[in-house]
């Protein structure tokens, strides 16, 4: 899909995020909006998937380690046809296939249960390792939050990814700079992530995480013998003026008025 078409999908996914969280009266719009271009690009242009056969053993895998960005995930999966957009109305409701955080038992297209931060990257390492030892050409993608990188287990996973030479694994880190309690740099500074990831043995690409061409270039760059990391600088709440760069919109849903305003800003 070309950049123009992709940005149309991105706009639609942003509207989906607002609709879902608005309907539910809860959820995480900020970190969903920051991840839209990354997730849309991977799903539309890089993953081998068949929405009609979501458990195809030869599919590529995606792990949303920052599971609170579920509205973005569900938006992308629905746009691709894994399930109907009608499900959005039940997001976070009793018996819904769309749980507050991703649940592979309930949602077609979801490969792991995530949301408890720090665990998804290790699961992705296991998937990539499992593909390698069985001689499969499966590619595995994981999307992490920057606040999430404060979890020690993330670094255990990074160590293992390099140790097992997982060049079929791409780790994307959504660097939106904010977490629940404030700026990541103030809460617990991550320091020089580029240097740290390189020191951990990754092939590192640092880009603007809303620039579809830059994302495409980073995802397409060939890599051999080591895992890839895309450090994507993003804006939390991207696309909705009053949500942008506000930690307060991490886990708060828009009210009716805010929802209308947001949707207006996101019109085609």
């Amino acid at each position: 899909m070309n950049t123009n078409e992709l940005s149309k999908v991105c706009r639609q996914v942003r509207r989906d995020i607002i609709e879902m969280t608005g309907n539910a009266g809860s959820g995480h719009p900020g970190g969903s909006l920051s991840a839209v271009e990354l997730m849309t690009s991977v799903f539309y242009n890089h993953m081998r998937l068949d929405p009609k056969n979501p458990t195809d053993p030869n599919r590529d895998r995606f792990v949303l380690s920052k599971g609170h960005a579920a509205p973005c995930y569900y938006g992308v999966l629905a746009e691709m046809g894994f399930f109907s957009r009608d499900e959005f109305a039940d997001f976070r409701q009793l018996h819904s296939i769309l749980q507050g955080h991703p649940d592979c038992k309930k949602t077609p297209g979801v490969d792991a249960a995530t949301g408890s931060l720090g665990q998804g990257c290790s699961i992705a390492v296991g998937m990539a390792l499992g593909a390698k030892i069985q001689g499969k050409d499966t590619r595995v993608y994981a999307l992490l939050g920057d606040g999430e990188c404060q979890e020690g287990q993330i670094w255990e996973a990074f160590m293992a990814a390099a140790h097992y030479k997982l060049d079929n694994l791409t780790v994307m880190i959504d660097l939106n700079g904010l977490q629940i309690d404030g700026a990541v740099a103030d809460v617990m500074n991550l320091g020089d992530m580029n240097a740290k990831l390189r020191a951990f043995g990754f092939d590192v690409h640092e880009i603007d995480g809303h620039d579809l061409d830059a994302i495409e270039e980073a995802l397409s760059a060939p890599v051999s013998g080591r895992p890839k990391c895309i450090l994507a600088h993003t804006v939390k709440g991207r696309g909705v003026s009053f949500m942008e760069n506000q930690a307060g919109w991490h886990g708060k849903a828009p009210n009716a008025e805010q929802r209308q305003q947001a949707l207006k800003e996101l019109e085609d």
Partner: protein
Amino acid sequence: MSEKIATREAYGKALVELGAVNDKIVVLDADLAGATMTKFFKAAYPDRFFDCGIAEANMMNIAAGLSTMGLVPFCSTFALFGAGRAYEQIRNSIAYPKFNVKICCSHAGVSVGEDGGSHQAVEDIGLMRLIPGMTVIVPADAKEARLATLALAEFRGPVYMRLARLATPVFEEDYPFEIGKANVLREGKDAAVFACGLMVNEALEAARLLSAEGIEISVINVHTIKPIDAACVTAYAEKCGNVITVEEHSVIGGLGDAVADVLMGKVNCAFRKIGINDQFGQSGKAADVLREYGLTADQIAAKIKETL
């Protein structure tokens, strides 16, 4: 009963048997392959063995990922670092999505001995039993540990298996092993003694001591703590009227509670839990530590007698 073999050793050797017939079996460890006995598999199938280093949380989630690729991962470390340290990884990334991961942890209970309380899990059965849908197995001897390991490979879903460091007597008789089905090892009318793990042998010894005094007890090996064999527990409680549970685990959360959950409100009986009384373990020779916590055959026999 002559030969002594630790359940961890039987587990390690059974993994090699499995490796030969099932190429989907993969084994993970966290720098304890020599102690958990996954070293045998490592030597036989190095391409399917992954030492994750001293990073148990990462190991559990790598196993979760491997299971989604159609593999059958067996994960081993010490019980405290598996069930304890990586509890939430097991809970959220393995049990919640019902992934087919086998968590087989050695060095459970105070019979770990010299390493001391920091390394003696007395709460792992409770932790794992609490997780919805988790199957919890505690083999009594080396033969059963082998059969259980083979059964796990055929069973679909998350399982926790508790293994011991200490070499203990191997039962001369052959007993069948079926997940969820308790084995009655001795029949007696005066009390139903439900035991698991190393305490099964102690309970059998206690039964012999009591028999010499004219007291006959039933000894039931409850190797599957969850799902527990409710029919067997109920039948023997009703038949004997006195119920005693024996485990090398805290009296809170383990076999005793599992048996009590079955009987509560249903069967009128005297009930006593024998186990570790809300304490941590400590260093010492395994036999001395077991005695310190009241878990030897003669001590168990005395407690049973008190209860009757």
